[in-house]
């Protein structure tokens, strides 16, 4: 071996910027330590948040026994599932039109419109939706929340679907048509199965976004339509108990599971290897 040893070479860049290691450590501590503490104290036996008295899963039992929490969790699920379903269908159709429908006047503008909600500050959307709903006198209870969630979930569902479609070879669709498949059969048998990883990724992303949303839901939700994040916020106002930690931990777990699935789905999947 004549050159520098690979191991030594690989280690060097890390130390080249002075203080980068410290900075990175600080970042990790400030980002993840509170979350770790939150999860740890959800298993605290005592009722004072930051005083560890022993291990217990009582607070989880308490949380599950709490009818209000169950109702809020149920609302969250209903909203997330419905909004995700609608947003994913709309996003899939939009992506199909933009990626397969040929160029049409204003297609660039449409793409911009779909992505715009990602750029608009959430509080602006929240206030606007609230004012709009009360302005037209729309009062569908949880339905209002669902509509609001659909609007901001669409761009999140759209992105992975569009990316998947752009990477897909159009000759596969031509091959299907060449083999006597009508447009609908081509979509059902070739386009959709190959697009599925993108659709599932989009659905999961929008489900997580919907489950976690606070600001818009806070504004739009009526008295009986509280979702889990909004309920957690109201619990905190009455003082933090480990019950809050337990509920938050469950929410965190659901998000992590879904994001992990999303990560795997966008990386591997049938049809990734083409040609």
């Amino acid at each position, binding site marked *: 071996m004549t050159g520098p040893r690979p191991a030594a070479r690989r280690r060097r860049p890390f130390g080249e910027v002075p203080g980068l290691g410290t900075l990175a450590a600080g970042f990790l501590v400030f980002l993840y330590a509170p979350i770790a503490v939150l999860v740890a104290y959800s298993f605290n036996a005592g009722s004072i948040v930051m005083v560890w008295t022993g291990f217990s899963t009582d607070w989880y039992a308490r949380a599950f026994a709490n009818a209000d929490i169950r109702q809020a969790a149920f609302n969250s699920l209903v909203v997330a599932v419905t909004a995700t379903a609608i947003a994913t269908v709309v996003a899939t159709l939009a992506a199909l039109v933009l990626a397969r429908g040929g160029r049409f006047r204003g297609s660039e503008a449409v793409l911009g419109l779909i992505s715009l909600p990602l750029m608009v500050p959430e509080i602006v959307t929240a206030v606007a939706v609230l004012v709009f709903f009360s302005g037209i006198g729309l009062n569908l209870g949880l339905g209002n929340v669902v509509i609001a969630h659909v609007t901001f979930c669409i761009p999140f569902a759209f992105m992975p679907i569009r990316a998947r479609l752009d990477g897909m070879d159009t000759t596969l669709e031509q*091959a299907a048509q060449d083999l*006597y498949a009508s447009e609908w059969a081509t979509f059902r048998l070739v386009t959709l199965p190959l697009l599925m990883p993108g659709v599932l990724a989009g659905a999961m992303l929008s489900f997580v976004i919907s489950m976690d949303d606070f600001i818009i839901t806070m504004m739009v939700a009526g008295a009986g339509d509280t979702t889990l994040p909004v309920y957690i916020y109201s619990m905190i106002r009455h003082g933090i108990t480990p019950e809050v930690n337990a509920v938050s931990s469950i929410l965190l777990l659901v998000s992590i599971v879904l994001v992990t699935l999303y990560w795997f789905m966008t990386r591997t999947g049938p049809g990734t290897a083409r040609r």
Partner: protein
Amino acid sequence: MTTAGAGAARPRAGAGGAGPAAVALRDVAKTYGRGAHAVEALRGVSFEIRDNEFFTLLGPSGCGKTTLLRAIAGFEQASAGAILLFGADIVDVPAHRRPVNTVFQHYALFPHMTVAANVAFGLRRLRRPEGEIARQVAAMLALVKMEALADRLPGQLSGGQKQRVALARALAPAPKVLLLDEPLSALDLKLRQAMRQELKQIQATTGITFIFVTHDQEEALSMSDRIAVMSEGRVQQIGPPAEIYEHPANRFVAGFVGDANFIPATVVGEEGGRVRCRTPAGLVLAAGAAPSPPGGRGTVLFVRPEKVGLVPAGQGTVEGRVRGLQYLGDAVLIEIDIGEALPLVASERMARLGQAARRPGDRLGVVLDPAALQLLAG
């Protein structure tokens, strides 16, 4: 239509055979874009492809051959003209209702379906009974020797295997015409040569009309019953391989199909079916004229390198001096200065060469047989 794979080869369609042409093209044109940016991919293409024929569209990239194939398949809408399939106009028939199938350049196998499901796809869409589908899929996989891999996914196959599956899939519905879009271009040389013979064989066995698109002249010459040479959206010549090679209609065909020497020349007289031509350097040579009358852009004399005869100095039609040699293994290309602007290239088989290796500077006689020389439009 006979069922494919039954070995029921019908008699080859003779010239002017009975029944309508498999495919008839009438003034087919295709223009992309509009106004100043318009690109004419096809400019009034008209010809007929006979039933049970191995027909090749040959030309450089951008000549319109793939556009023409896609227009027959239904993936492109012709801007003008008519496309007739066994006498029926199919211009307004959507791709999925045309009884033609395509072998795509990069195979386009459905990655989420097994080999067997890929081959069965067309038959399922045609709502054939399951028993018939199973039999036909088995027959097709046997035809391309892929029975053992029926349950694999396309991702687990090699390029050559994918090629075979793509062929089986396109043949399974027993199309009236099979379109092949440069199907061998992604394979390596040895495999490509083996597949040529196999494709030819399959065409003969099934009796299906093959329309094969390629830019490879060797492929076209070795497989086709007839070849249409295309350039700039037009058909330059149609004919059997030997005719295309031996008697090219114009300079483009001569230069694209095989190697060629071109010597600018003007006609100075005629005698007994031959024309007498004079080159810029003052050589007067007798030559046959091209089938079509030479056009106005000047004329050239054309001769294939292997038809240039080499004899000892003083015995040839023309005297020359060796300028350079190019060793090709089985043959050697010899550049000979005969006083013209460009040297003449002759090719000599190595077997015949023996010990008498030529060297740059050697003097030799060049025989330009009037039968091998042709006058072409420039």
